[in-house]
């Protein structure tokens, strides 16, 4: 069987929870052939592989959100749309109801030039019509170019080359979900969407906070992401969440309840049974932070907060553990901020001496709705205190529900069922392969640093 995994901004170039999940998924199913479509921002950037590619991974293809227009001169000059194409495109860009099948067919049937489409008269006319109906007080040129830049990544994805596979599996919604939906629509193969976070909501939050987008454009961006989200839920054969709260959010967001199911992340605690513990005569209180040293994790704020705590309790020691190479400049700034004579904490790469096992407690800069896997990591093998940042306002599994080998075993079972045309009898309920661990939940709630 050939499974096409669709990933945005993660595997195999970025270390982190989702990439680990993808790697483990492939390693745990050696009898399945995988092809990976990885969505990157743009072509030409040098990217190092952060994972050894498993033998059953046959192909990795990059797809770009911002790419050049690879077309001939004639193709670029003029784009003739049929009435149906026009309506489908207009519905996608400005309508409430989107004829996604029409959109997918339009991009599949033609070697569409992004320039001919976005800088074409049809796009101008539909933009003008929508503008005159809704936004007459906004500068028109700004509006037009905002629309172009807004839909450029989506159109780039839609015109990307589809891959033939028996099963499509995206690790998130958003652009990866749209790519999965497109291939599902074109080849009529099952499509599973595993939502590690909630793409639409996260983008909404980003857009609301963002400075680069202002005024009415915030609404338009949010509307676009909602349309994308709705597309993913419509075309996915199954949609998984990491916990029950997440599943409820999916249903609220428009996903049919019968498509949803929960597959929690899990860690095999046996792997960490022999991990050494902190020396009894160690006078310090060690705090470990498991995170990628990137701006999105707001490491600087944590270092500053730690500095304040250190003034009150000089025995504190902070260990930031995670990859430093994703945003080296930011990591260097964090290093400087945390350097000797300042906050006085250490930044360590994974597997560095003084690793997680020696800590007294952990902090995980992870949104609860994502499953907080690193937190469990500390929690599982050390009976340590766990402080999990609640970045959002969502109830999540930070307090427990760590499954054992949950995702790997269950996805494999799901590929088999879906390709056989069967329906999961557990849909809408907790998966049997990922049992609830009520005891873990109780323990995890206990000490908070």
């Amino acid at each position: 069987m050939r499974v096409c995994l669709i990933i945005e901004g993660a595997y195999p170039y970025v270390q982190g929870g989702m990439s680990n999940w993808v790697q483990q998924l492939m390693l745990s199913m050696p009898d399945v052939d995988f092809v990976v479509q990885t969505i990157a921002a743009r072509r030409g950037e040098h990217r190092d592989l952060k994972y050894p590619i498993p033998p059953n991974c046959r192909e990795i293809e990059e797809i770009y959100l911002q790419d050049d227009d690879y077309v001939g001169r004639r193709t670029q000059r003029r784009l003739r749309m049929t009435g149906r194409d026009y309506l489908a495109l207009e519905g996608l860009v400005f309508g409430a109801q989107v004829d996604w099948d029409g959109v997918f067919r339009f991009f599949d049937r033609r070697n569409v030039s992004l320039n001919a489409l976005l800088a074409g008269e049809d796009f101008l006319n539909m933009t003008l019509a929508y503008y005159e109906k809704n936004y007459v007080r906004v500068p028109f040129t700004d509006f037009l170019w905002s629309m172009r830049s807004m839909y450029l990544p989506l159109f780039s994805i839609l015109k990307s080359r589809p891959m033939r596979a028996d099963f499509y599996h995206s690790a998130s919604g958003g652009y990866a979900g749209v790519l999965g939906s497109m291939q599902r629509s074109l080849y009529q193969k099952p499509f599973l969407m595993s939502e590690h976070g909630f793409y639409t909501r996260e983008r909404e939050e980003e857009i609301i906070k963002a400075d680069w987008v202002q005024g009415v454009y915030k609404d338009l961006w949010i509307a676009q992401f909602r349309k994308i989200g709705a597309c993913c839920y419509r075309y996915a054969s199954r949609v998984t969440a990491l916990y029950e709260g997440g599943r409820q959010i999916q249903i609220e967001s428009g996903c049919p309840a019968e498509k949803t199911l929960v597959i929690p992340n899990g860690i095999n605690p046996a792997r960490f049974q022999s991990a050494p513990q902190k020396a009894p005569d160690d006078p310090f209180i060690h705090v470990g932070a498991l995170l990628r040293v990137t701006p999105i994790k707001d490491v600087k704020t944590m270092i500053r907060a730690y500095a304040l705590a250190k003034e009150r309790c000089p025995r504190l020691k902070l260990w930031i553990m995670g990859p430093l190479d994703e945003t080296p400049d930011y990591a260097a700034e964090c290093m400087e901020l945390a350097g000797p004579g300042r906050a006085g904490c250490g930044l360590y790469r994974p597997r560095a001496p003084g690793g997680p096992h020696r800590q007294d407690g952990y902090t995980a800069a992870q949104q609860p709705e994502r499953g907080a896997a690193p937190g469990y990591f500390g929690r599982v093998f050390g009976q340590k205190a766990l402080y999990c940042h609640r970045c959002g306002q969502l109830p999540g599994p930070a307090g427990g529900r760590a499954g054992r080998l949950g995702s790997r075993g269950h996805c494999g079972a799901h590929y088999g069922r879906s390709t056989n045309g069967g329906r999961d009898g557990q849909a809408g309920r907790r998966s049997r392969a990922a049992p609830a661990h009520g005891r873990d939940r109780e323990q995890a709630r206990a000490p908070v640093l």
Partner: protein
Amino acid sequence: MAGIGFELKKIYRKEGISRALMGAGYSSLVTIGPTLVITGVMSALYLGLDISRVSYGERELLSATLLWVFLFSILVTAPFNALFSRYLADAFYQKDYGGILPSFYTGLTLVGALSLLLAAPVLWSLHTRGGVDPLFLAAAYVLWVSAVLIFFTVTYLHATKDYRSIALFFLAGMAVAGGLAWALWAFGLCGTVHAILCGLAAGFFLIAFTQFAYVQRYFRGMEGRSFKCRLHFVRHFPIFAANLLYTLGLYIHNFVFWNTPMRLEVAATFVCHQSYDMASCLAMFTNISTMVLFTVIAETRFHDAYQNYMQAVIGATYGRIRMYKQILFRTLSGQMIHVFGIQISITSVLFMAVMLLGRQYFTGMTMEIYPVLAVSYLGIFMMYGNIVYLYYFEDQAGALLTALIYCACTLAGSLWSSTLTVQLFGLGAFLGMLAGWTFSFFRIRYVERNIEALIYCRHKVVDTMYASPKGRTVYRRA
């Protein structure tokens, strides 16, 4: 004409009849001033040095030499001038002064090389087949190269907006030309023909030299090693082609008549058709004020309307964009009628004067050819105005097509009209004008109807590549 608009706006900032006269005088000085000065000096030399006493052959050799020098120097430089003028306007707008001097040298090299290439076979033919003496050839060559350099450098001088200096250079050069020619003739150092040609060559050389020095001095300190202009020339090649075809169209009907049995052959090299060429010259001068009128109106009122529209495009609501669009095209159509109205009055008066007085000075054939050509040139200059409007709208393809249609129809029409009666010789130019003007008019209408698409759909959203496939396979297990 980069820069003329600023000066005209300064003049027209205050209303009043004196300002209007000042504007008209200023525009005349800039647009047709040099032509009038040169023509005036040459006429004075012809009269003063008593050219009528010179043998017919010598006289025609001088006239043909001057005709070819001026005609072909305009033909060689006009397309380059349009291209470099556009480059200068862009460079000034973007405050990218570093490339101006390098572009000047690039242009001089191009036109210089071209003038050398064109002159070599003519000079060789004059010497070997026509038996023309070396002094005449040397003077003719200096005059030719100087004229080419002057007509090219004028574009850069206009960019400095120092019209007083330009006028001074021309006046000084022509004074030297007149003075030297008279001295050579009066002191018996050479004959009338050689004196006139040597005087003009010296005068033109002086103008070219002073212009070159002035441009160099003006832009010194701003120069970089940037030769971005080359890329600009490739991108705006249609402007070059359009102006080449337009200028060719201005003279192509003459070339057709130069190949009829009625042509005059001088020194086994030069050919001309005296009556037709003179009629063309008269018709051109009858309507040349169109260019003055157009310059005044386009560079002031239309430019303002265009600027308002473009500013609305940059940052206004669509309602305001639509309003300024209406104003823009109302201004444009109003101006077309306005220029035509004034010019037809001027043309009528001059036409009447030529018809009444011309018979005393010009041949009967010239006077028979003249009426059709006078009407044709009125339309040709109006058509050029339309081409400039198309440049404003960045419709280089429209401008090129207009020039191509005009040139091709003039050629075809002249081939046909050269077989008709004398009164209809000018019909080729008339038909070319009619075709070109009609196309340009409907092209402007097309622009008016599709201006949004032309403005908003002109630019690429992403870069274009032709070779690579979509996506990129970064890993494949064998």
